[in-house]
């Protein structure tokens, strides 16, 4: 799961996957701006078959938070 998340974030922020780590977030990864934030969340939703709330779309702005939100999310129907 972590690698898939890293790959999605790397694709969207135009970074090499090696630069995206468990500690990456919108404050320390180049390209992770507010537009990328939306793109990352909708891509995560698509790939993992989950749906986040409007608030989560904006607050899940680090790899760490995304991982824990996905772990807590109910399995896709």
């Amino acid at each position, binding site marked *: 799961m972590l690698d898939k998340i890293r790959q*999605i974030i790397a*694709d*969207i922020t*135009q970074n090499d996957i090696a630069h995206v780590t468990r500690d990456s977030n919108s404050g320390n990864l180049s390209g992770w701006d*507010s*537009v990328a934030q*939306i*793109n990352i969340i*909708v*891509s995560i*939703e*698509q*790939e993992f078959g989950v749906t*986040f*709330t*409007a608030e989560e*779309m*904006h607050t899940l702005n680090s790899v760490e938070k995304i991982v824990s939100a996905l772990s807590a999310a109910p399995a896709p129907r």
Partner: protein
Amino acid sequence: MPMNLKTIRHYHAAYSQLDQKLFDRKIKLAVLTSYTSDFILPLLEVDLMQSEIRAELYKPHFNQFRQEMLNDGSGLYAAQPDITIVGFNIEDVFPIFESDPSDIAQEVLGLCESMIRSYRQFAAAKSQLFIQNWIAPIHCYDPLVRTEFSIARLIERLNRELSALAGKTPGVHVLDYARVAQQCGLERWTDPRTYYTARIPVAQEHWIALSQFYAAYIRAALGMDLKCIVLDLDNTLWGGVLGEDGIEGIRLGESYPGLPFRRFQQYLLGLYEHGYILAICSKNNEEDVFQVLRTHPSMALREKHFAAVKANWREKAQNIQEISGEINISIDHMLFVDDNPVEIEKVKLALPGITCLQIESPPLNFVRQFQELRCFGKLHLTSEDRSRGRQYFDDRQRREFKQTAGSVEDFYQSLRQRMVVYPNYQEHVSRIAQLSQRTNQFNMTTIRLTESDVVSMMGDPAYLLLTADLSDRFGDSGTIAFIQIRRSKEVWNIENFLMSCRVLGRTVEETLINYIFNRAAADGVFSVEAAYLPTKKNAPFARFYLSNGFEPAGENQYLKRVAEHKAAVSFIEIIEHEMRLENVG
């Protein structure tokens, strides 16, 4: 290069290739919206890249579109866009919920009108403008029967009026946003989460569809439409194999399994009616094929709909090459449709540049597969488009007639050709623009003109724009040539001369040269100059001016003194359309 672009993430991954690629076409694209457009623009850049177009974007901060459009000194006009897309949600701009709908309608249309006027005034004449139409906002009450107070009814009306408004100005088009929303499903078009928190009016599941829709408009605006569809027959236009099943056994009719084939033919008929050329390339006995075309009761497509019919056992690539030669449409503008992947691969290999569609059985999705290609995006329909199919059929008859005629002279004589020449004829504006966009071979300088370019030249007394219509015993070929001449007192300069390749070899070009010199002589002109700019496509005509008695006069320039012109042999009766329009100009 085909890429796997199924998700937004794939698009963003592909985005990084933009800077590593070389592009045939570069355009400046401005996108002005009342909402956030960042979600769609990278996708659009990638979709355009797929069509070999590099877009340099101009996008001001959202909701600046009015100032940008209306002010001469705005960043928009400084950016000199080739294409501008304006999209605004009415509720972002007008108090639609708190006002009388008819007042709002006036204001919205008034705004569109002033934006169009400003754009035509401040942007380059060849720059094109798209205005997006509208859908009802997600929070409008929509009664089961729409009333005069319902906003959905207001939107319907505005969309109709916007179409009428755009149709009046050259180079201005409606971008049918309402249609793409409807096709994707209005119910789920907007995701409230992204709409309310980030002003993104389109749900993410539709971003790719919207981007491809925009790209289709841009390709159409750049004249990148395909022109001709070459069709296989067995398991494409009907089910089964004619050679084995016989005319009674093939599947084609008003019930399953013949119905989807009949519907597919009807879909193709729609393309034919809009000016796209159909041809047949099939491994079959020619006689059997004509029997089906002429007598099968359920064929929607008949012999007269095809510009060429190749039913034989030769390689398809060879047949397609021949079709291309006969109807003078280059391989680059052809779509080849077949159900057999081996045939598709062979054709692709032998004819690089051709577009191929392998239709997949069962035939239920043929039409959808076709639509998804988005290669046939007509922005407006001319009368030439409406009659094009018939003209190509006439040409086929002419070719057959030529084979039975004795000498070439006999053939010319017996055609009984008649040409009408129109000087600065305003009703030909859109046809001139279309010819200049579509003609690649017999096109001396390949200057591409938009309708607004043509209008402004017609208003300039220095310019003489000639168009010519040709007809003969087989029918009317419509407007087939365009000549752009810049006049001074002593010298005329043929800035461009282009002709539809369908009428090559019928002494049209010689007749027109005679006409130009006769007119020039009558105006007391001393010499006529002409330009030829080589391109990949027009090389066969590099010596056109030399073979018509012109002499080289500097790089890409030719010259002939009017007194030295000797009328070339012509087999065409020439008639001049009334001159009154020119003098009004």
